[in-house]
């Protein structure tokens, strides 16, 4: 009995202490430094700190301060121009408690070998992605996210490849390979093939998206299973966040993958020694590389580890969707003759207002959180998310206000020109998005293209307004949340799904502020204004 027996009070106290920036359990920096030094590595530490734009309720942090510890194993007889990185995120609690031990064991074993041609950096980073971001920014002398960090004292050459380990138990049944990185960037397929081939050689079970592979490709169940795996990859890629620590390496043109050990209910378990052999083999293969991995595909989708869908196949589907928009645009262009001076202004007003709303959606949630917290009984995170939802919904009321500003200039010509502009804008936007993050572009195309290509003011207003809202970007995100939960076999109820949706929005804003993920600015500044332009066309009077 006492203050800490009540779980909610514990939570409040934890939150209070996190905000006060006194870590209850941090990383054992001195122990790690001693451990690495005793294994013969050159050990350095790096401290970093960052104040998040608003508290992160999933990971319960707001003002983050941490230390990365890394040891460099110098190649004994080679010029020190290239390096490999093996990293293990160190988080408090049980989530990754075996990886550091495995890392140290590997370091000790590697130290006694003479065949290393590249330097090997053993990185233990704190606060998972933030620590990796601070380390990578310091290594490459950039500062793109506004993090404060101390410069690195020791450095190796240019990093050729990286592996990130996540192990929570010392015996595992399978290893899960995680490839999706920041902004949907993927490592070269050769890295995945390498890992899978080596796992097969050693007899270790390797999975992707947490699902085992099936061998019956021609049955319906096999096909469904593969389709589900591929859909999971599409959803994970579309959300633009890095699903493992490796994701941030990809931005610096370093091929990286995350390996997560899964301990499920299966008879045959693999012990840590085999995992060690596996990792040693992987690192030796990467060590023997003469150039960066670039021969295989960078753009692919994996229905399983032994099959892939290359960009040549899937881009065609996307191209056909965008062609719909272009053909529609050509049809509209033939019916429209260029209006004189005032006509252009008629079109310009909805465009400018939509984009201003988009800018408001991008800037205001984070900037107005203090004001919202003063006036409403919500926490900062909730304030940010609910402001975003409120601005999004308020945008729906725009057409009426825009029409008033135009003072009755809405002519038949006017909406056709606006539709032409909006169609071309959407086509270019979706094209650029698909080139960078195909899954995001594809999902947006699938939901936006049908309704926008056929949008006219003469459609039945109530029905088409409903359809338009149901296919808007926010609802697309909601559907993706539900579909994702279904696919990982953890279906949620509507209310849980809604809470998950709100947390997805807050994660999106945080990812953009912390790591430079482009999903939130893309949706707020470009896709949403484009959707608003079509909404304006629907209500053109």
């Amino acid at each position, binding site marked *: 009995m006492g203050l800490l027996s009540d779980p909610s009070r514990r939570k409040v106290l934890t939150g209070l202490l996190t905000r006060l920036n006194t870590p209850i359990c941090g990383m054992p920096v001195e122990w790690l430094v001693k451990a690495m030094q005793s294994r013969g590595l050159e050990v350095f530490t790096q401290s970093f700190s960052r104040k998040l734009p608003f508290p992160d309720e999933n990971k319960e942090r707001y003002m983050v301060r941490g230390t990365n510890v890394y040891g460099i194993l110098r190649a004994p007889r080679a010029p020190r121009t290239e390096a490999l990185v093996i990293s293990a995120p160190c988080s408090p609690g049980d989530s990754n408690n075996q990886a550091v031990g495995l890392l140290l064991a590997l370091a000790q074993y590697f130290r006694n070998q003479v065949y290393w041609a590249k330097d090997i950096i053993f990185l233990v980073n704190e606060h998972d992605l933030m620590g990796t971001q601070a380390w990578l920014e310091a290594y490459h002398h950039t500062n793109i996210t506004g993090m404060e960090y101390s410069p690195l004292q020791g450095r190796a050459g240019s990093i050729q490849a990286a592996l990130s380990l996540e192990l929570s138990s010392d015996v595992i049944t399978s290893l899960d390979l995680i490839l999706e990185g920041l902004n949907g960037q993927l490592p070269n397929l050769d890295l995945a093939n390498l890992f899978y081939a080596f796992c097969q050689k050693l007899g270790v079970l390797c999975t992707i998206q947490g699902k085992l592979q099936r061998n019956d490709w021609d049955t319906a169940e096999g096909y469904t299973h593969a389709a589900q795996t591929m859909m999971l990859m599409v959803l994970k890629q579309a959300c633009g966040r890095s699903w493992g620590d490796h994701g941030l390496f990809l931005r610096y*043109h370093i091929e990286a993958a995350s390996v997560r050990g899964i301990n499920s209910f299966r008879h045959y378990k693999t012990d840590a020694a085999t995992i060690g052999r596996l990792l040693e083999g992987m690192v030796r293969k990467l060590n023997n590389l003469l150039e960066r991995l670039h021969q295989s595909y960078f*753009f692919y989708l994996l229905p399983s580890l032994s099959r892939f869908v290359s960009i040549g196949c899937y881009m065609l589907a996307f191209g056909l969707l965008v062609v719909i928009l272009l053909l529609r645009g050509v049809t509209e262009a033939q019916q429209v003759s260029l209006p004189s001076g005032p006509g252009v202004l008629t079109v310009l007003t909805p465009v400018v207002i939509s984009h201003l709303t988009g800018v408001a959606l991008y800037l205001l949630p984070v900037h107005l959180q203090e004001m919202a917290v003063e006036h409403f009984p919500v926490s900062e995170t909730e304030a940010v998310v609910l402001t975003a939802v409120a601005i999004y919904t308020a945008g729906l009321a725009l057409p009426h206000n825009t029409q008033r500003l135009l003072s009755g200039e809405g002519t038949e010509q006017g909406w056709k020109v606006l539709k032409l502009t909006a169609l071309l804008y959407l086509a*270019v*936007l979706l*094209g*650029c998005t698909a080139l*960078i993050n195909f899954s995001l572009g594809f999902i947006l195309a699938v939901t936006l293209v049908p309704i926008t290509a056929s949008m006219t003011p003469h459609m039945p207003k109530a029905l088409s307004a409903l359809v338009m809202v149901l296919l808007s970007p926010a609802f697309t995100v909601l559907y993706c949340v539900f579909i994702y939960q279904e696919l990982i076999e953890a279906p949620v109820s509507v209310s849980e799904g809604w809470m998950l949706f709100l947390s997805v929005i807050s994660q999106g804003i945080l990812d953009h502020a912390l790591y430079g993920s482009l999903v939130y600015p893309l949706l707020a500044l470009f896709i949403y204004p484009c959707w608003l332009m079509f909404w304006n066309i629907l209500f053109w009077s």
Partner: protein
Amino acid sequence: KTVCDLNLSSVLMNSNLVHRADSFFLATKMAAPLTLLLIVAVTIRAVLFRSSWAELISERVEVVSPLNAWKRVVEGLALLDLGVSPYSGDVFHETPFMIYLFHFVVDYAEIVFMVSPDLVFCLSRFLTSLKQKYALESDRYPADCLELLRSPKEMFYIPLKVAMFYLLNPFTILSCVAKSTCGLNNAIIALFILCTLKGSALLSGILLALATYQSIYPLTLFAPALLFFLQRLYIPVNLRRSSFWFFTLQYAFIYVGSLVVITGLSFFLLGSWDFIPSVYGFIFSVPDLTPNIGLFWYFFAEMFEHFRLFFICVFQINVFFYTIPLSIKLKEHPVFLIFMQIAIISIFKSYPTVGDVALYMAFLPAWSHLYRFLRNIFLVSCVLLACSALFPVLWHLWIYAGSANSNFYYAITLLFNFGQILLVSDYFYAYLRREHHLTHGLYLKKKDGTEATLVLK
């Protein structure tokens, strides 16, 4: 602002228009939208100058080239301050006039870059006064062509549209925020066109010499300027007439003389002839193969050394080659020839940037009456817009993500240049077609009376 108004009023009073008083009245009516436009343009530029985007934009390869990057100007100034020749080290490729100009105004650089576009739109006034000449000659044309001619009311808005097209063009804004000296080169060319249209051969020659001194390609504008003056002075373009040769030699003398004087002055400014290989040798021999929106870099990156000289000659002759056929075809329409020449220079020069593209695009509203004859305008605008959006995406995929390579970026470059060439040739077709209609009537009939179609061969 007041200066421009005075300029406008003085020009209109000096011109040979019939509705002199009416034009003056109309011009003051246009002052309010013009002021609004200026304020908007200056605000956008000021906001961007102060934001974090300015650094990002000044490093984009589409906006700056080795010839006009601000970073290099600063480097050259630093070298000059140290007493070393600014051309040592192959960093600085601006002319000595430019370095001395910035030596004095480097603290006010942003203001200089914001003011220079204003000079371009002052030019637009004179295009108006020029086009109004057509209205007087309406009795020369067949009756059904009157709809092809433009009324003064239509032409009233052209200066505003030209100003809008230049000042609010994203290309110009990017070029200005990046502090690329392309804006200043554009201003010199605009002043040259202004003086040509105003009829002052001396100033025109001097400014053309200055423009040529800055980058060699405006040399091709000598022909249209000459043709304009010959037309204005009613000297027929006949190689056997002595009046033609007399004027040509006069103009050529002014031009070459100014060029010699300017080059000599540059020599005395810096005390050496270093600037000739650094500036003109650089433009001609294209040693720097940083990707840009032009056609040179990819070719020369793949070229064997053995053939390099041959291909340099081929590519450079390509810029100058179109002058003679175009001059022959458009000898009665020198203003359009100036537009075509500027467009050709922007497309085929060795280090183009978006600022060069913005210059010829600013003149498009002056030919808005050709819109009905344009055939590909939708395709061209789509291509240009899509390419402008795809440039940064493919650059990111190539340089940062490593998933693409130079071929992708060059594909977009090729597509962009294709779009520009299509735009220029479309306007050429439309212009010739309108001239044909003006001489032969709008509704063409074949010999048996059925409707005919016009084909460009």
